Structures are given as C-alpha cells and as structure tokens.
C-alpha cells in the first residue's frame, strides 16, 4: 500500500503497464523530460525515454491522436496524452468516429487498443475546465472512464490500457493533486463498467462521477443531520455503464438524483435518467432530479464559476426536493 494522489496513482498505473507490456507507449505534448503539464507523466521519461516509448509530439492533436489509432491498428497499445479535454473537438473524428467504428466495420478484423487521457474540470488550474465527456457517449465503439479517487484511477487506467478498444480516460484537475489516499500495490485492475457504492444509504440514490462524487459525499454528510440517508453511487465508467448497479440501488431507495459536471442539456446524466425511467419507473417514489451546470460556457470570474458548477449544497437541495415530493 502507498499513499498517492490521483496524479501519482494514474502515472503509477501507466508505468506498471509499460513494464508489463512492451507494446504500451505514450505520446503527447511536453510529456518527456518536462514530465507533462501538471506532472501528468512525471517519471516516465526517466524510466522509458531511452527505449523511445515516451514521445514528445508537435502541437498537432488531430494527427498524433490519429497516429495513435494507426499504431494501435498495427498492434501497439498507445496511450495518448491530449493534455486537456478542451481539445476533444480537435480529435473526435480520428478517435471516435473512425477509431470507434473500425472493429465493427471490419467485422472484427481491426482492433484499436488505445487510451486517450485528458485533464479537465473546474479546479485550481483556472482554465481548460470544460467537461465535454458527454459528446463521446453518442459515438459507438468508444469507452469513457471518469475516476473519482486515486485508487480507482489506478485500477481503471490499468483496465483501460489492457482494453482492446479506444478508451477515453478523464482526469479531473480538481482531484488531481487534491490529497493522497491509500492505493494498492498489486495489479488491482478495476474492470470497466463496474460502478462502486461510495456510501451506502436507504433513502435516495445519488449517481455521480469524478468531482461530483466528492461533492455528493459531502452533501450526504450534511443530509445525515436532516435524517436523510443517501446512497452515493460512483459510475466510474460512463461507457460501459453499470446499469445493473444503478437499477438495483434505485429499486431499493425509490429515489434518484444525478449529479454531473457537463452542462445539463445533452449531458451524460441524462443517460442514467433515461435508464431508470425505462427500467425502474414503477419503483420510483418521487420524480428524478438532475444537478448539472446551466447550458452556458464555463464563466471566468471565480464567483460566476461557483454559480455555474453544482456544489454540495445544490446536490443536497435536490435530494431534499426529491425527498419532499
């Protein structure tokens, strides 16, 4: 066991997988000797640089993600560090539309085992905050992972690297250096598509990912004083989604709140809501509530940013509303 930050655990997973499988390599901007912005690749250059497996690229996102797809088609297992999720729009064609379709359209002859990782989210780094992960839910053939703590980050990154499909791995900047937690030494692979109950409760299910898990847990603590017993379900991966875990929890509590950092319209929260509306409508004892930012670009002033991003109070309010209904 070691106490690690989200960043350290993620890099540890990459280093362990690079040791284990010589086909794994990593590329992106400023990830070599510099160690990656916010230390996203710290130490990898020292260990694997001489083997040519840590590759600094020019600022050419579409092409280096496309090159990742091309190398994956040849049997390599590239990890591409996109730096920020804000650049998703520059690469969604190569990664998603083509990369996600290749296995299906080739009738299983082509595999694209690659990971694109990106930092995002409202946090101490005042900028590049956009959370666009929901776009990817509407692209067939790609997986989307959004861990909420260091141990999950490690286990999920390992699973992502071992997966034979294009996987998008989200690294929230508000969690990145936000404290150390126990992380196991062993292989500790966490299969994609397994949700995790971060707090068990009986009255209401709050489904969340990444930073919203932390905020949901804080909301749950406050609600305990009001006598409301909240279950916090961390999806961990949006695609594949652990539908069974969501349904099991909601069938038990009869109430659902979904918290999401992507804007409300078209956000991934809606996928959870639709699932429950279709499959567990009869088990609901109250209308569903969503907690998500309004449909505006992330504003700059910190006070506006606070208004924009749901916090524990917003989640607690939604829970109270659902309980009162």
């Amino acid at each position, binding site marked *: 066991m070691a106490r690690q930050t989200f960043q350290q655990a993620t890099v540890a997973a990459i280093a362990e997988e690079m040791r284990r499988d010589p086909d794994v390599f990593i590329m992106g*901007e*400023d990830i*070599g*000797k*510099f*160690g990656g*912005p916010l230390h996203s690749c710290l130490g990898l250059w020292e260990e694997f640089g001489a083997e040519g497996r840590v590759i*600094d690229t*020019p*600022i*050419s*996102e*579409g*092409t280096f993600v496309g090159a990742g797809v091309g190398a994956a088609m040849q049997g390599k297992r590239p990890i591409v560090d996109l730096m*920020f999720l*804000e*650049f998703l*729009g*520059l690469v969604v064609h190569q990664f998603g539309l083509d990369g996600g379709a290749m296995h299906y359209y080739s009738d299983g002859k082509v595999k694209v085992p690659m990971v694109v990782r990106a930092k995002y989210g409202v946090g101490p*780094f*005042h*900028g*590049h905050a*956009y959370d666009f992960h929901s776009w990817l839910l509407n692209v067939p053939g790609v997986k989307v992972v959004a861990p909420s703590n260091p141990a999950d980050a490690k286990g999920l990154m390992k699973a992502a690297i071992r997966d034979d499909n294009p996987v998008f791995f989200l690294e929230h900047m508000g969690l990145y250096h936000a404290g150390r937690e126990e992380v196991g030494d062993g292989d500790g692979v966490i299969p994609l598509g397994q949700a995790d109950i971060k707090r068990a409760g009986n009255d209401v299910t709050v489904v969340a990912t990444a930073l919203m898990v932390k905020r949901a847990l804080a909301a749950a603590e406050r609600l305990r004083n009001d006598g409301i017993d909240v279950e916090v379900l961390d999806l961990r991966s949006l695609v594949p989604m652990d539908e069974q875990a969501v349904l099991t929890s909601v069938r038990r509590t009869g109430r659902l709140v979904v918290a999401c950092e992507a804007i409300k319209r078209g956000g991934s929260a809606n996928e959870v809501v639709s699932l429950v509306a279709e499959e567990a409508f009869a088990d609901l004892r109250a209308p569903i509530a969503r907690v998500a930012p*309004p*449909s*505006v*670009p992330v*504003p*700059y*002033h*910190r*006070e*506006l940013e606070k*208004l*924009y991003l749901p916090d524990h109070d917003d989640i607690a309010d939604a829970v109270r509303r659902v309980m009162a209904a």
Partner: protein
Amino acid sequence: MPRDNQTLLDLYRLMALTRALDGAIAEIDGHWHGLEGEEAVVAGAYHGLRPGDVVAPHYRGSLTAACGRGADLRKLLAGLLGKATSYNRGRYRSDVCGPPEFNLIGLYSGALGPPLAYATGAALAIKLDGRDDVALAVFGDGTSSRGDCHEAMNMASALCLPVVFVCQNNQIAISTPASDGVAPRSVADRAVGYGMPGHEIDGNDVLAVHDTVQMAIARARRGDGPSLIDAVTYRVAGHFVSDTVEDRPPEEIERWRARDPIALFRRYLVEQGVIDDGDLGEIDQAVSAEVAAAMAQAKADPDPGPDVLGLDRVFA
C-alpha cells in the same frame, strides 16, 4: 522604409507599455504567460494598423494588440481579474481574448490554432466586400504545427486572401524547442510550400518587424495575397509565471537577455538623435504610472453579480 519620429516613439511606447504590463500582471497572476524579450514582435506587428483591419493575435501579446488598437487599459486589466467593469463583464478572460469591438479575434476556448482560420475567414469577408483592409494572424512556433495553421495558409494562398501571417517565434512551446517541433529549419521556409513569400527576420529588432509587416500588409491591400513572416525572438521568461521548470542552458537565456529588444531600440533612438535618455525615462515612468493607476482601479472595481451569468444570453 521612411518613418517619422512619431512612429518611432509610438513603437517605443508600445514596447515599454508591454514590459510594464508584463511586470505588473506577473505580480498578481501566477498563470500569466509573460513575454519579456518578445516586445519587439508584438509592438512592431500591432502598431500602425487601420481600424478596419482584423487582428487575431497570438495569446502571448494579446493585451498589447488590444492596447495598440486603442482598448482601455483599465477595462483590460479588469478583464484579467474577471471584474464587472471589463469588456465582457467578467464572463471571460482578457489575457487571451481581446474585445471584438476593436476588430480583435481571441481564443474563445483554450485551443491554439483555430483563430488562424477565423483570420482567414475575416480576410475572405474583406475580399467579398471589396475592402482594402487586411487580416493579421499571429501565432507561436508551437502553434505553427497545428493543422489549422497549415490549412489556413494554404487556403489563404489558394483564394488569394489579404492575410499577413506572423510567427511570434520565441523558439519554444512550453518545454518543446522549435528545433524539435518545427521540422524545417525555419517557419518561413514553409511559405514556399504554400506559394506565398516568406521572410525570416530578427524578431528583437522592432523596426525590422514593423517594416516587414507593413510591407506584407501593403501587398495584401493591393490584392496580391498573403505573406508569412517568421519573427525570431526568444522566450526569456518561463511558460507562465509560476512555471519554474527550466531546462534551457542559462548561457542561452543570458545571451538573449543581452539582446533585449527594448534596450536595443533605446540605443538606436538615442544614437539617431530621436530622443535622449532623459526623455525615454519619462516615457517609461509615464507608462508605468498609467499601468499602476489602471491596475489599482481594476482591483477596486466591483465583482460581477449573478446576473452576469446570463443564462438567457447564450444565443443572439
């Protein structure tokens, strides 16, 4: 190229203002992307434009472009602090995105590259209107590797659009030296491939920058199409203020510090008898006082209220 003393002093003033702003902002903002040593490129490029010209500045130097076009310093600094008195009332940062009312195209997300296309589109609109205005697109050596950059240059040339492309080549992108990120020897060498003139110039010589940009602008106004200028300078500072990782040889940094563009230009102005040291000192003081006053005002300015979030203001 003939130039009057007023132009020379205006260029000096814009360089001095850039330096003063850089110092003042570095004190309050750890994420500020400083431009010590790059003042000649931005002052030389952004001085002498007409109001109808459209500018898409490189983010590093965007404030200088706004000042050069007449934007209000206090409002710009308020924009850095997200204050209600800024040009967009605190919705967006002013350090990478200038006010559009001055015909400035900024970064509307953090992605480098797309503004080159917007500048090309501005030139297209100018051409469709039959105006003799131009678009000026400035970008870093790192940004020159973006597909947007290559595609914008090719399209501008193919459609014979009035664009002047200027690479603010500080020879590094975060940690990646231009020698690793840019395949040819010089960014200017790429011009051949796009079928436009390419000029490699000393980016620490403000007159070389100004003259070359003005020459390219004149060509574009005549309807003869785009040009590419590679203004080679050096990022003396870190990538941003609190970025202390430094892998470049200290001698290299010192060598470029010794070629400080402001010091070089001061020497030139005094030698040519344009102005003496005492009067230059007065300009420096006046500029510093202006920045200090604007900063004090901006700091005291009110924060935006919840109404600025403007949930019903996304669509036009």
